[in-house]
C-alpha cells in the first residue's frame, strides 16, 4: 500500500482556475519525491490536499490508505510534518519552544519535551546548549530552516511535506542543507514530498521526481530516467 495516493483528484481554486484535473499519483513509504514545476503548476496545492488544508472537489487523497475526508483533520496534520518556505517560526517562542509546540499539543510531559528538543537539535546539527534558548530572529536563514525541519519532525510523523524549503537560501547554504537533509533522512526514513521549482535540487534530494505542467503529472520516475527523458516539457525544465 502506498503511503500517499491521489486518485482522480480534481481541484479548482476559489477564483475558478482548475489546478488539478483527474490527477493520479502515488508515493511509497520511505521515498523522497520531488515535485518540480513552474510556479502555478499546482505544487503547493498538492501538499495542502495531503494535510487537508484543502479538500479536493472530486476524487480521493489517501494517506496511509485512508481518504483525507475520513481523517480527523487535527489528527491527520499531527501525523504529517510540514515545512514552509518562509518557515513560519513563532517569533514569540524560543527555538526550543518552537520545536516543542506539537509535543506540547500532544500533552507530553515537560521532561519528555525537553529531551526530544535536545535530540532534534543534535539531529539538525545545532548545539543544544546554545540554541534551545535562542530566539528566531537571532538565527541565520539556514539555521531557521533547520529548526523548521526539527519542528516538523517533533512528534516523529511518518510523512514530511516540504514546500520550497530551501528556496530563500543562498546557493552555498542551500547545498550545505541538501547534504544535511540527506544525512537526516538516512536516519529518520520518512516519506517525504518536496515541492521545488529547481530541477537541481530535485536531483540532489529525491529518489523519485515528478514533473508537473499545468496541473498534469507529465513524468514521474527515478532521477536517472528523468534526466534522459525525451518529453519536451521535461527537457524545458531540465534546461532552464
Amino acid at each position, binding site marked *: 500500500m502506498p503511503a500517499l495516493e491521489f486518485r482522480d483528484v480534481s481541484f479548482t481554486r476559489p477564483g475558478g482556475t482548475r489546478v488539478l484535473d483527474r490527477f493520479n499519483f502515488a508515493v511509497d513509504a520511505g521515498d523522497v519525491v520531488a515535485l518540480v514545476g513552474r510556479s502555478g503548476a499546482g505544487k503547493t496545492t498538492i501538499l495542502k490536499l495531503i*494535510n487537508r488544508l484543502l479538500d479536493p472537489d472530486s476524487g480521493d487523497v489517501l494517506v496511509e490508505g485512508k481518504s483525507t475526508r475520513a481523517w480527523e*483533520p*487535527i489528527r491527520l496534520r*499531527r501525523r504529517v510534518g510540514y515545512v514552509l518556505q518562509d518557515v513560519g517560526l513563532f*517569533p514569540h517562542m524560543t527555538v526550543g519552544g518552537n520545536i516543542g509546540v506539537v509535543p506540547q499539543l500532544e500533552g507530553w510531559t515537560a521532561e519528555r519535551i525537553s529531551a526530544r528538543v535536545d535530540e532534534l537539535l543534535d539531529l539538525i546539527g545545532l548545539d543544544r546548549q546554545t540554541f534551545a534558548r535562542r530566539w528566531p530572529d537571532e538565527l541565520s536563514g539556514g539555521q531557521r530552516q533547520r529548526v523548521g525541519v526539527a519542528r516538523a519532525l517533533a512528534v516523529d510523523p511518518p510523512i514530511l511535506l516540504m514546500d520550497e524549503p530551501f528556496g530563500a537560501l543562498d546557493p552555498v547554504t542551500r547545498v550545505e542543507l541538501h547534504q544535511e537533509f540527506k544525512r537526516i533522512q538516512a536516519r529518520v526514513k520518512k516519506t517525504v514530498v518536496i515541492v521545488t521549482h529547481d530541477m537541481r535540487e530535485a536531483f540532489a534530494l529525491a529518489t523519485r521526481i515528478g514533473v508537473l505542467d499545468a496541473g498534469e503529472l507529465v513524468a514521474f520516475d527515478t532521477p536517472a530516467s528523468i534526466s534522459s527523458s525525451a518529453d519536451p516539457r521535461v527537457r524545458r525544465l531540465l534546461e532552464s
Partner: protein
Amino acid sequence: MTRLFTFWAAHRTELAGLLAQHVLLVAASTLIAVAIGVPLGIFASRRPRLSAPIVGIANIVQTIPSLAMFGFLLPVPLIGGVGARAAIVVLILYGLLPIVRTTITGIAGIDATIREAGVAMGMTSRELLRIVELPLALPSIAAGVRVAAVVGVGSATIAAAIGAGGLGEYIYRGLSMVDSTVILAGAIPAALLALAVDGGLLWVERQLSARRRSASRGTALAAAGVALAVMLVSGGAVAARSSGAIVVGSKNFTEQVILGELVAQTIERETGLPVQRRLNLGGTLICDRALATGDIDVYVEYTGTALTAVFHQPVTTNSHTVFTDVREQYARTGRTLLPPLGFDNTFAILVRGQDARSLGLRTIDDAVKVTPRWRAGFGYEFLERPDGYPGLAKAYGLRFNGEPHVMDLTLSYRALSSGQVDLIAGDATAGLISALDLVQLDDNRHYFPPYDAAPVARAQTLLKYPQVRTALERLGGRVTASDMRRMNYAADAEHKDVAQIVSAFLASR
C-alpha cells in the same frame, strides 16, 4: 498656588479617599472592558463581516457625551441609577472601543505564514488563538487597554455628577462655588493620574512588545497584575469603609452639600449608624430618581421645587399648603417628608444696604417708586421661570430703567455691590448677602412660592431605623436663614471645610 496647597492639606483625607475612588472606578471598569472587549474583538476578527458593525457601534457609543450617557442610564434598572455601578457601566462602554479595535488589528496584523504554520501543525482554532494569535496580538491589545484606561481617568471625573465620587467631586464642587482653586484641586490630581496611568501602561506595553524577552514579558504582566490587584484592594477597602446603612444624598451646590453633611452628621451623632455620603448629585431629577430606586435614603429638598419640578403641580404661595400637599404626594410614592429645617430658600429681591437705609426700603412695594431709575440684573433662570421675573413685575407693577441685564447668578451679587446694577434676584440664603452688606426686600404680597428646606427620606428606611426619623425630626426648625447664610459664606467665601462648618454648627446648638 498657596491656596491650592492649603486646600489639599486641609482636605488630605478626603483627597486620598476621592483619589482611591477614582482609581477604583477606572481599574474596575477597565478590567471589565478588557474581559468583554478582548473576546468581542476575537469574535469580530473571526467573522470579518461583523467586524465593521461591531467597531461602528463601539464608535457611536464613544461619541455620546458622558453626561448624556449617565442621563440615558438613569432610569435603566440594574445597571442604571446613580452611584459607582452606573458610572462603571458608562466607563466600560467607553473603554470597549479602543480595546475591541486593537484586538482586531492585533490579530489581523499577524503574518499569514505564521498562522498557516500553526494550522498545518494541527492546532485547533482554540489552540491557535491561545498559543499563537493572542500572544502576538498582546502588545497591540495592551495599547488599547492603555488608551481605555487614560480615557477612563478623564471620563470618571464626570461620574461625580451621579454620585460615584472620585476626583470629579472637587471639579463639580468648584464649578458650583465658582472657585477655581477647588476645580484645580480635583483637575490636577486627575491629570497627574492620567499621566501616571499612561506612563505605567506604556511601560507594560513596551515590555510586551520586546517579544524576545519572555522573562520581561512575564515580569510586565505580573507587575500589571500586582498593580491592578493593589488598586482594587485599596480602592475596595476605601469604598467598603465608606459604605454604610444610611446613604445621604445632596444636589450639587454649596448649600445642598452643607445640608447633606448636616443630615449625615446628625444621623451619625444621634443614632451611631454608619452613614455613606453621596453628595453633589447632578440635580433635582437625579436626587429624586436615586431616592426612588433606593440608591440614597435621604436628601434635603425644597417644598416649592418638589411641587413644581418633582410633582409638576402649578405654583401656589401658601407655605403650609405647599408643605402638606408635597408631603402627601411623597407619602403616596413611599417617601416621607420630614419637618422643615426652618428656613425658606426662596428668591430674594436684593438691594445694597446703603440704598435700603437711605431710602428707607423694607418691602418690594417700597422699592416700586424708585425702580424706574434703577437697573436690574437677573439670572437667566429667574427671567424664564413662571415664578420668576414676568410674574413678579406684574404682581408689583415693577418697572426698570431699560430691560433687566442677564447675568450669572453668582456674579450678580458682586455686580450689585459694585454698583453695576441696583437690584437683583438672589438666593435668600446666599452667604454673600451679609458679606456684601445686601438687604433682602420683604415679599409683602407673597408672590414667591415657598422653598422651605426639609429632609425627604425613604419610608422603608425610616421604618427599619425609627431612630433616624427621630433624629431628623429633631432637626426641624433648627436652621434659620441667617444660620444658612453664615454656613454658605463660610464654605463659599472663607473656603472652610464643609464637615467642620457643620460640626461647629451642631456643637453650637
